[in-house]
């Protein structure tokens, strides 16, 4: 029997980037796998371009919030990550960041970065950078070296969630699937080019 999943992920960005949507897709993937899930989200005024953060906890938890130094990973839609969000990460946490260059990200043991905005533009859907990052994050944490706790869900799990959500709208579905796949594939191509 596989050990029970217990995973805490912080998803960081600014209002309007689609932090809530990414959080929701991952949470739905958890439910599809029969796992208990809790998320905590930022609504209200901060959604007007202010800093937003989601907490996602999959497995046997009671509290909707992640305590400092307890998160296994971070998905960051903005490269300028507030210190307050970095403080959630455990010492050997992974971080998946929407950024074209690996910067000096404090406290990050495992950094994976790619320019999701550029990839989203390339597939003709500038607003899908959030999904590109999700696809990239799944690929990087599962396929990357020395990741202590890879994301609990696969790219197929995410695709299935999208299939269910957008079953009535093929155009939106195709665009969303294209975005997660662009992110996913970009990890592979990054590796082979190294």
């Amino acid at each position, binding site marked *: 029997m596989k050990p029970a999943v217990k995973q805490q992920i912080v998803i960081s960005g600014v209002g309007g980037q689609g932090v809530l949507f990414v959080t929701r897709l991952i*949470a739905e993937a958890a*439910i599809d796998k029969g796992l208990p899930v809790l998320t905590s989200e930022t609504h209200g005024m901060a959604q007007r371009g202010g800093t937003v953060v989601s907490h996602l906890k999959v497995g046997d938890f009671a509290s909707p919030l992640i305590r400092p130094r307890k998160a296994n990973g971070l998905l960051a839609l903005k490269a300028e990550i*507030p210190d307050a969000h970095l403080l959630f990460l455990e010492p050997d946490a992974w971080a998946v960041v929407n950024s074209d260059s690996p910067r000096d990200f404090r406290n990050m043991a495992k950094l994976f970065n790619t320019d999701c905005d550029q990839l989203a533009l390339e597939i003709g859907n500038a607003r899908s950078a959030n999904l590109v990052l999700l696809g990239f994050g799944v690929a990087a944490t599962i396929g990357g070296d020395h990741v202590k706790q890879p994301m609990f869900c696969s790219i197929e799990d995410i695709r299935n969630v999208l299939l269910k959500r957008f079953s009535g709208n093929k155009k939106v579905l195709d665009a969303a699937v294209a975005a997660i796949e662009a992110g996913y594939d970009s990890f592979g191509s990054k590796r082979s080019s190294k």
Partner: protein
Amino acid sequence: MGKSVLMLGNEAIARGLAEGGCAVATAYPGTPSSEILSSIASINKDLDEPMHVQWAVNEKVAFEIAYAAAITGLRAAVSMKQVGLNVASDPLMSAAYMGTKGGFVVISADDPGPHSSQTEQDSRFTAMSAKIPVLDPDSPGQAKEMIKLAFELSERYEIPVMLRPTTRVCHTRQDVLPGAMSRISRRPEFEKDPARWAATPKFRFHLHGELEKKLEKIAADMSTAPVSVSKGQDTSKAILVSGVAAAHAKEILKDLDLIDVISLYQVLQPFPLHTTFMDHLLNTYEEVLVIEETTGVIELQLADRSRVKGKMSGFVPRVGELLPEKILNLIEDFVGKDLTPHEQAAPGGRRPTLCAGCPHRASFFAIKKASPKGIFTSDIGCYTLGLNMGAVDTVLCMGAAIGQAAGFYHAYRNEEKQPDIVATIGDSTFFHAGIPPLIDAVVQKIPFVLVILDNRTTAMTGNQPTPASGVGACGESTGSVDIESIVKGCGVKFCQTGDPYLLDDFIPMVKDAVQFSKENGPAVVIARHPCILDRSIKMPYDK
């Protein structure tokens, strides 16, 4: 059914209302409560007999509509945020005396932090002041179940019952098991009883006595009694929690391997606190730690607080959200463990800002051009963010832009030089609380300009309709009220409407208004351009 679905706390509350057979649901939007009513609206089409679901002009009106339905015997609910409860507090206080026939649930969402509110006030305290029971959920799943419990409690004792979720319940998503949506087959039957429904002071005295008797029984009702979460070996100490603090504490005690050591009790109904439970607690344990948000409502009801640690004693912080890391330290301190150190993050990140292309930006630009040295009173909504443009000097509460404008005029009236006063208020906020102060300003001939920022929606809370929209909560067509007619009806002599995007015309309009007001009293400019986030409205020059 039988399969869990991901539900936002507010969706779970909506689901609870549908499963509990609610017939009338009303609300005024406000973070963190707004998604409750919109979720009901989306469930409504699946019901055999749909509920009446509506956004009311303000919380007081929302309360009165739902309450009247409840006294006919139907189940009804009203939802709002904590500061909205202030607006609805007038009918609340009386409804507590008169009670109800059908289940009546008042949902008031608190915002410890505060994240998106003017205050950290505790709605449970208002429930205590009104003398109605209040339930305090720890999660979306519990919130759904508590709605049904609230309906039953409300009908058993003929009393309004409050559900008090906080931001961390409203905006948490969880896997929740949906139950069957039941429609209770009830017809409205209003039984005339003037001694109750139209009670004069003499009868109110009697009703107050009845209310006290009800509370006594509710404080002994087993359905809402505190729950023993874990029984510890240590018989000297106990921890008492409610709301989301209970969820944090459960997890923390497990992480600290204290779940079998310290007794943990969860209060479901912080007011009235169960009397036998209080006795048990104080007679059994030498020390009790109470963790609750945001005021010490439970703690206050413990008669002997000499062995109680909480907000009143100063052990638990009185200000700010009780984040799990704070609760961790409180528990560590309480049991005599070393405190886990927590780094403080430097304040950072981005402040919220008006969207690029937001019509309010243009309006504020025009106001600053027309009146560079004015005093700018403003109000509650997206346009509060005019702060960033130096075009907002005051924000007090819903509707205060106008009342405060009058106050500033009176304060400076004997000075040699009197500042221009330009007030800004959103369309929805104007309908909500702006009309009485405008009437007052006309009567007092206050020289000020009111710019009504009419973006045709309630933007900040997620683009709910306004009374001018002609569309209801479920997308149905409704009547509509136009702002110009109200302004003119209030007796304002200068009322002009312009599109702030067309600055060449709009700036002179605001300047004219400023000039007019100096001689003649209130002038109103309606700055009309739809919210760029509201895709339902197209402008003539949009593609």
